[in-house]
């Protein structure tokens, strides 16, 4: 089985990389891009039957830093 993990910065956490990407989009003429927040996407190949609780634990213990990041799991 496969799980997809989306990791995003919490609102209120400064995202200088997103800002730089936003700036570059603006320079290319994409004025309709109003803001950019950059995150991470992680694909996990898992043993069949792995519980969502175990995946949650992976996110909390390593994949995301919950001080600054949120995560979303798709199975």
């Amino acid at each position, binding site marked *: 089985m496969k799980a997809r993990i989306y990791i995003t910065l919490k609102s*209120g*956490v*400064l995202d*200088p*990389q997103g800002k*730089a990407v936003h700036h570059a989009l603006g320079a290319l003429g994409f004025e309709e891009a109003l803001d950019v927040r950059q995150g991470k996407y992680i694909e996990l190949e898992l043993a069949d039957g792995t519980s969502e609780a175990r995946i949650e634990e992976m996110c909390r*213990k*390593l*994949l995301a*830093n919950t*001080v*600054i990041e949120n995560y979303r799991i798709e199975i």
Partner: protein
Amino acid sequence: MKAAVVVFPGSNCDRDMAVALRDVAGADVEMVWHGEASLPDVDLIALPGGFSYGDYLRTGAIAAKSPIMQAVVKAAEEGRYLLGVCNGFQMLAEAQILPGALLRNANLNYICRDVTLRVEDSDTRFTDSYAAGETIRIPVAHHDGNYFADAETLTQLEDEGRVVFRYLDAVNGSQNDIAGIRNRRGNVLGMMPHPERLVEEDQGGTDGRGLFRALASAFR
């Protein structure tokens, strides 16, 4: 005084740290590989600067889960002294031994230069050789030194006087210009600037010596 410097794959300030601890603090220094499960019996553990695990995932994140880190956390809980510099500070934050996180510098640049710090808390065993409010010149060399904590944590750090070093001028976007913080008990210090890089005149200055002299007198 006995000290251990933990070496991770990608550490690059471990030997400078060992030299400063040996030559200035007069410590017996043992280098400990991160894969070890236990620490030697020491007064101080230092987590050095560098790029452990190539900064993969997040700076300090994978090092913070190394086998040795369980022993480091336990030692700190028992009251042993723990110093994290640069990547070492990032590990302490990732291991949640110290609050907050170190984000990418606000201007996205890798910043490598001397900066002026104000010693905010000179009442610790790491800093009592400095005067409160003294300004010192110490180098920084980091890409991810932008200190972030939620508003509540930040207020708590300030109210409890746990900001140990503060940048005199904005350097990397850190909230409240925080350069270094300690835990409540005062036995854990994390800081982005590198005191071990300025301990001999040959290095261009000696403002970093104070930290190692303070440790020397604490563990005579």
